[in-house]
């Protein structure tokens, strides 16, 4: 809903946009944690970077000498250490720490530990199973105002408790957050309208991760919209054990990805 009403008024009236300079509050450098832990992939990676002043270009990121430990411990107590890899893996101020020793398993909980500038950061996440897609089809809808192609797919709701699904189209960075309206008995259906006919990824995530990503998407996309949610701090699942006020940004995600290859389905003429 949201922005469209404003768009109309924008077009009609003498609205105007202008890039301006504003003063922002005190700028605090925070550690940013990101992970690539995907079930079935032999290598798991942790990316570390830092936040930087809003109006400045990307900086060089962390100083690797400040990082004294990156490790992940499984719920059975096995600890795996991560090491900085050199070369092209470090870009956009991010430094990559990787390991090929960790074998991800469903329903296992992983605890991340990072020691950065003598402060201990902890993150914890459980790997949830993502269901396979049962079936899918394209629909072509000739609307009153416009014509649209939809892709609708179905999958089983795996866990008895609430599940929190995310659908992402990597190429366009479009995210869909599935809610209860999409559930019919034990089957979940999803209808997407924006895709590039390549791959779409289905994820079953923790409630926290789904909420976190929806806030991030709204913070990324907010424009012209007075009815956007009020801007706010987005905190992930990592915390600073040594100095809680110096909380980190980012999220330690551990995911089971189910890739939907759209060319496998018949596209309408």
């Amino acid at each position, binding site marked *: 809903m949201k922005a469209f009403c404003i768009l109309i008024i924008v077009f009609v009236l003498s609205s105007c946009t202008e890039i301006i300079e504003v003063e922002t509050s005190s700028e605090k450098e925070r550690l940013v944690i990101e992970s690539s832990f995907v079930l079935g992939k032999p290598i798991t990676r942790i990316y570390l970077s830092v936040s930087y002043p809003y109006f400045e270009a990307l900086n060089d990121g962390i100083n690797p000498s400040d990082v004294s430990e990156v490790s992940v411990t499984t719920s059975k107590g096995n600890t795996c250490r991560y090491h900085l890899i050199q070369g092209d893996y470090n870009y956009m101020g991010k430094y990559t720490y990787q390991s090929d020793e960790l074998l991800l398993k469903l329903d296992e909980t992983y605890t991340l530990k990072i020691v950065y500038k003598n402060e201990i950061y902890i993150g914890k996440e459980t790997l949830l199973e993502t269901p396979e897609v049962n079936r899918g089809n394209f629909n072509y809808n000739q609307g009153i105002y416009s014509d649209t192609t939809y892709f609708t797919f179905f999958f089983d709701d795996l866990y008895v408790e609430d599940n929190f699904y995310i659908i992402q189209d990597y190429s366009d960075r479009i995210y869909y957050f599935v809610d209860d309206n999409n559930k019919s008995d034990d089957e979940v259906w999803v209808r997407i309208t924006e895709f590039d006919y390549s791959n779409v990824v289905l994820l079953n995530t923790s409630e926290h991760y789904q909420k976190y990503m929806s806030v*991030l998407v709204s913070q990324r996309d907010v424009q012209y919209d007075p009815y956007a949610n009020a801007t706010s701090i987005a905190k992930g699942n990592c915390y600073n054990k040594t100095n809680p006020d110096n909380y980190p940004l980012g999220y330690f995600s551990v995911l089971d990805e189910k890739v939907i290859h759209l060319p496998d389905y018949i596209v309408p003429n």
Partner: protein
Amino acid sequence: MKNIQLLIFIIFVNTISSQQLYTFSGIVKDKDSGETLIDATIMISDINRGVTTNEYGYFSINLPSSTYKVIISYIGYEFIEETIELNKNIRENYSLSMLSSELEEVSLSYNYKKLNLRKAETSVHKLNIEEVKSIPMVLGEIDPIKSLSSLPGVSNAGENTIGFNVRGGAADQNLITIDEAVIYNPNHLIGLVSSFNGDAIKSMKLYKGGIPAKYGGRISSYLDIKLKDGNTKHIKVEGGIGVVSSRLMIEGPINNKENGSFLISGRTSYVENVAKIFTDIKGFRLGFYDLNAKVNYNLNENNRLFISSYLGKDDIRWNEIHNDFGNFTSIIRWNNIINNKLFSNLSLIHSNYEYNLKLDYKAMSWESGIKSYNVKYDLSNNYSDVLNIEYGLASTYYVLNPGYITPSEAGSLIVVKKLQDKKAIESALYISADYELNDNISIRLGLRYSMFHRLGNYTLKLYQNNAPIIYDDQLGVYTKGIVTSEKDYGSESIAVFSEPEPRLAISFVLDDHNSLKFGYNRTIQYMHLLSNTISPTPYDNWIPSGKYIEPKKANQYNIGLYNNSDDYIYSTQIEAYYKETKNILDYIDGVDFIAIENVEQNILRGEAVSYGLELMVKKNKGNFTGWISCTISKAKQRAKGDIEGGPGVNNGDWYYSNQDRLIDISIVGMNKLTKRWSTGFNFTYQTGRPSTFPESRYSYGDFLLPSYSDRNTDRYTPYHHLDIFFTRKRKANQRRRWKGEWVYSIYNVYNRQNMDLIYFDNEEEGGSATKFSYFGIVPSISYNFKF
């Protein structure tokens, strides 16, 4: 407490010791239209006592047997002066004629617009509809709601925002009624124009404080809009053609006995068609309409019946998204003059606000809304020449539909889902006494006792430690509480609240031109609007107080100095206020309230405080009239997390509310240039509203993201604009019934690009801030007519 006892004792002694009293009563009307006049003054000049007519034009005063000189007057009308022999009860109706412009120049102080120094009523503004019409608004629309922000202590969140803010209160803290029916969304086109057709409005009265005990349910203000009853003598037509909408009103007698009238007014927009001229954008529709209908009939001398209805709708479509929402109200009122001393009014009111959304791409329809059924019985007893008592009761039954999802077409995959209806009953008893202690001191003492039942037939989640929201110490975030079970409340009430709401106002007349007034009021609000968006939206949810949500409670103190200049050309009022509010709703970071069943999992309880100094200087007489209003104020709030645990919002510190405006200045002027030409202007300046800007940025995945600072630690740039208008009336000709005028207006003359929105872009080479202004300079033209 002792003071209250003393007052009751004084009233009692005064009453029993008084001699035989007779009642002088009647109704005051406009001579030309038969329309009753609200707040007309009946002055008993020999003893310096007076009363004003109530909202139905009725007055009544009890006096000892004697001969009196009485003056019946109303601003802008010729007054009537006569002598009455009061040796029995007298009932007399008066019809006043409008002042001609020649007479206006030599009119006496009775006719002047001036402050009522004597009445124990504080923080009240009456807006004359002619004044509203003369405040130029964007695209030439008459906007009673936006015009309120030209008053001290009243602000809005800039262009295109719904509602208004009074003394640091949020938009949902204003009770807005139109002929007593509650209006939940006072704007069309998401804030571009108001829901009310200015032509049909008889009076507007805004209580910013000193709210009489008769009114309750909201903590910040009460906006009382009364519609015209309709011309009892002639058929009259009035209308206007503007850039985005046109309006038409027809009023007239329902028979030739002048004992009843009707009024129908309507308005419709064509903004969509105008938009298409400027752009080739396809796939949208944008429109609104509203309709007022009203009939009144005198059953006999003592009984009068009113039936009225209001319907306002917005319809917005954008490709596959259809959105419509609006208010519908219907009211039946019965005025009964029980005896010379006792006036009563019984009202039956139905209000309905609906919000509908249809998403074609999901084949889904969404409905939500709020319905209320209200019965009110108010009595006014003119006990003596110095004491008037009002008392009554009211009860409202609410049915809130938080959301109903259905498939919108055959073959839709959408499963029907209904969020549970929430039901509640809000009731109140009140008594209020206006007492003139002596020539210099008047007191209004009131007590409202309100009760609220959150009704059952609802399944509620129960939480561990009764905590629907808990704080995760490690992650530093609030999360939903641990659900232990569910309880089906059946016929049992979920929660019951009751609270006394004392109200007090005292006026000390210092001399003929100055008075000092003090006011205190305690107000309770049981219904709350959930909103976590930058501006209030048409789809924000109303929720009742209940097991997890306490009623808001406010205490407001105000003191004011009021002055009418010696020649009555200027009037000045200076007021200071302090308001504290408990149990305001604050929200956890990032919450979206659409389609949420268990809202309590996202709410933190907070408190608010606001204080300020307001000045209003008004020039009431002459070719040039207008006012300057200036407010210096602060509005802060905090949520300490003392109930939910954790540090609350912003570490539990006070932070600026969205409504905080340090400085708010309005200057409004109207000038008659010639008999045919007049001009006017409006200048507004407000400190920018608080906001949350990013403190830094970072990269996560492919995203470049802002990292936001604590809530509302930054601020928009100041908001200001100057608007002017010129009106050219058709040449006067007594034989011609048709009266027309062209209104040429320019909104935002110096093309100020106000910061109506700000958004932050993120590119690798650096972040940037972009401000968005809805309106630069906007010229417009409209034509108004009546015959």
